[in-house]
């Protein structure tokens, strides 16, 4: 067996107002920490949803067999490690000691039931499709048998996108959204008041993972110092900033870049910048003429001034990189396609339009006002494309409408989408988005299909890396979609929040209130 344990307020009233005010939140260790986020979770069933708003909460309640470290690589969390057979068909997980919030010790039966539930209701249920059977030879061992080699399995079950959360067997037997929020995480669920807040409290019997010295991504040694956590849902960005300044909130999931710049000199606050957080893309609908003509798509690719799009849509917090994987990660595809990135050559674009025999057909640019980046990307790109003579119509809707529209083969040509968790997860989500039965571009590309096949079945890492290089080259050569650049994010804390490290979600284990 091959061991890969390292996989790792009015005038009269003004007189009484001061008396109505409450002092800022108490500043003490232990204590109550308040985090504010824009949205509320669509559900607290961690396995079902891919929403960031749910992940911020559920990853304090639940743990997974494998999780992602600080660099985004899969590392053991509830598992001590995994032995993978040389043929890639058997995964033997040894479980570490852990205890659920209901007091029950975690066993292999809980892990098995949770994995099986994920295959039924999981937000990324496809990761369980290659699984043939799951055995539990003893209370601390889970053996997963595959129908065919699936090198992306550990990446899948370790992803925080829709976490493959381990829950008690009896909860795992329940349908989607019907389970109680019981996990093995450092905090346990107290209450959820929709449109207001979620309350968590420190899990006194939490079993720390002593294989680690400190926090490491979503894995590592999680130390719950703060006694209570309140996660408030504050829809208005200005109100979140005001709440942080007033001392009513300790951590903001995200703060607008201009507000962060304004508050950078405030000694009572700390701004934590993360780069990259996501990347901005323009998805193309290849089923809708003239997008079916590669010369026309290359004209768009040549015409766009991506740096202008990034500067406007991100309020200046961006990085110009061509990769469909982030630099410094395992699957970063080097310079593949780089010469086709951010060409910004109007003459070349006009020549390509002529070559494509473009007759002024209307091109619909689809965006949504729910996400500022999407709106600004579409508006800026539209102006640039008009500049080379393309007949552009901008269609800005709300997010659900734009999302629904993009699943149709007609009615749109270009759609703005920010990909965040997918590139963080590695290549599987990104390549998978452009392949399979319903690729985002609506027309299957055989080269990308082959890349996807090699990526998901290649037993050697080098084979999989080459598949990602070929994927990225094809994306640029055929202008399947346009990557605009990397987007950053600013998380904000009060200065008394100690040991805070910015990450994909605001992690509240390991921090304390000074």
């Amino acid at each position, binding site marked *: 067996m091959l061991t890969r344990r390292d996989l790792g307020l009015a005038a009269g009233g003004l007189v009484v107002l001061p008396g*109505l005010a*409450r002092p800022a939140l108490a500043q003490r260790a232990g204590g109550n920490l308040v985090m504010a986020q824009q949205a509320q979770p669509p559900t607290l069933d961690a396995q*079902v949803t891919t929403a960031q708003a749910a992940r911020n909460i559920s990853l304090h309640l639940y743990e997974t067999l494998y999780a992602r470290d600080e660099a985004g690589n899969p590392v053991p969390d509830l598992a001590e490690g995994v032995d993978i057979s040389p043929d890639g068909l058997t995964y033997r997980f040894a479980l570490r000691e852990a205890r659920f919030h209901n007091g029950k010790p975690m066993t292999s039966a809980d892990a098995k039931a949770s994995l099986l539930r994920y295959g039924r209701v999981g937000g990324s249920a496809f990761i369980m499709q290659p699984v043939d059977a799951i055995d539990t030879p003893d209370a601390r061992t889970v053996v997963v048998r595959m129908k065919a080699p699936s090198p992306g399995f550990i990446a899948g079950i370790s992803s925080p996108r829709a976490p493959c959360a381990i829950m008690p067997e009896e909860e795992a037997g329940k349908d989607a959204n019907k389970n109680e929020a019981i996990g093995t995480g450092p905090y346990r669920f107290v209450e959820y008041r929709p449109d207001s807040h979620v309350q968590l409290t420190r899990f006194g019997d939490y079993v720390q993972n002593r294989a680690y010295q400190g926090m490491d991504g979503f894995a590592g040694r999680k130390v719950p110092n703060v006694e209570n956590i309140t996660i408030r849902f504050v829809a208005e960005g200005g109100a979140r900033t005001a709440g942080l300044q007033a001392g009513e909130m300790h951590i903001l999931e995200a703060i607008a870049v201009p507000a962060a710049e304004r508050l950078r000199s405030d000694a009572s606050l700390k701004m934590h910048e993360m780069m990259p957080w996501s990347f901005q893309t323009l998805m193309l609908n290849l089923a809708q003429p003239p997008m079916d003509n590669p010369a026309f798509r290359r004209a768009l690719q040549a015409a766009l001034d991506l740096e202008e799009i990034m500067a406007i849509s991100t309020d200046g917090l961006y990085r110009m990189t061509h990769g469909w994987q982030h630099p410094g990660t395992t699957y970063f595809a080097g310079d593949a396609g780089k010469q086709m990135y951010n060409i910004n050559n109007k003459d070349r674009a006009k020549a390509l339009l002529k070559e494509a025999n473009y007759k002024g057909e209307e091109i619909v640019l689809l965006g949504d006002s729910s996400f500022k980046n999407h709106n600004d990307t579409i508006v800026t790109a539209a102006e640039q494309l008009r500049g080379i003579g393309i007949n552009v119509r901008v269609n800005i809707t709300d997010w659900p409408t734009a999302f629904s529209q993009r699943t149709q083969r007609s009615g749109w040509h270009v759609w703005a989408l920010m990909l965040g968790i997918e590139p963080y997860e590695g290549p599987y989500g990104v390549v998978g988005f452009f392949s399979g039965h319903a690729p985002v571009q609506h027309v299957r590309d055989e080269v990308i299909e082959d890349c996807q096949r090699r990526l998901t079945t290649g037993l050697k890492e080098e084979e999989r890396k080459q598949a990602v290089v070929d994927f990225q080259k094809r994306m640029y050569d055929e202008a399947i979609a346009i990557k605009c650049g990397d987007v950053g994010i600013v998380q904000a804390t009060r200065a008394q929040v100690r040991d805070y490290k910015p990450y994909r979600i605001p992690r509240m284990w390991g921090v304390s209130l000074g």
Partner: protein
Amino acid sequence: MSALPVLLLVSLMSFAIVWIVPGDVASEMAGPTATAEELAQLRDRLGLNKPWPDQLLGWYSALAVGDLGQSILLRQGVGAAILERLPVTLSLTFLALAIALVLGTALGVLAAVRAGQGADRLAMGAALIGFSLPDFWLGLVLMYVLAVQLAWLPTGGFVPFSQDPLGWLRFMVLPAGTLALSQMGLFARMTRAAMLEVLCQDYVRTARAKGMPGWVVIGKHAFRNALIPVVTVAGIASGVLLGGAVVIEQVFSLPGVGRLIIGAIQRRDYPVIQGGLLLTATIFVLVNLAVDLLYAWLDPRIRHGRG
């Protein structure tokens, strides 16, 4: 009697609108990069694939027994979800209405009594400004000044009146005050116009000729008769305030019906949108009914059908 057809129409329209608007709750739950297959599975599990006539029949069958349905995302009945949030919205709306009525009519009476003088111009200028400023902008400015700079009030949140009356007031003053400012201007202008008309009437002149003190003439004879148009406006204003509460609840993070409906629209939680719109229409109809009854109490001619 006209209330029933109105509510029937609203229920039908709310159903139609949510089914015509593209997008559904599955896309919210599954996320932006969900595949068509994943979405189809989720839609099937959530029962969103049923044909619309079945859904309409289900909606009216449930309504007939007083059931507004089950929220897809809240794991809660729509009726229970609305009832839980109704006290927040009603207390915000009626506190705002009370502030606007008391301060607005006081400003209007002052302006009418001092018509053409500096106090009149000042009061009407203030009313115009209050009426013109957008709620969301004013809310954020007041929040920055009163909560961040002066630390007199909290930036947002809510405590039920039953749990902590002073806490409730502390959280409600800023949003209700913000919401009240625009309608206060309207009440001030309406009261001034009505008072100026009434102050020219013979019975007011007679009261003054009899030697009654000025405040009695104004308070007892003029003001009460000037109240009829103000009450009419109050009825309309309560509807406007109820609508404005949607924005204010968003700005001040108040867990009210407005925020519930906005969230449901953003996430396409159909039963909540339908139930929320029907309930809002019901409140509006009941407020208008209350205004009609108040006319009769204020003016006996209306009560005896001589209005």
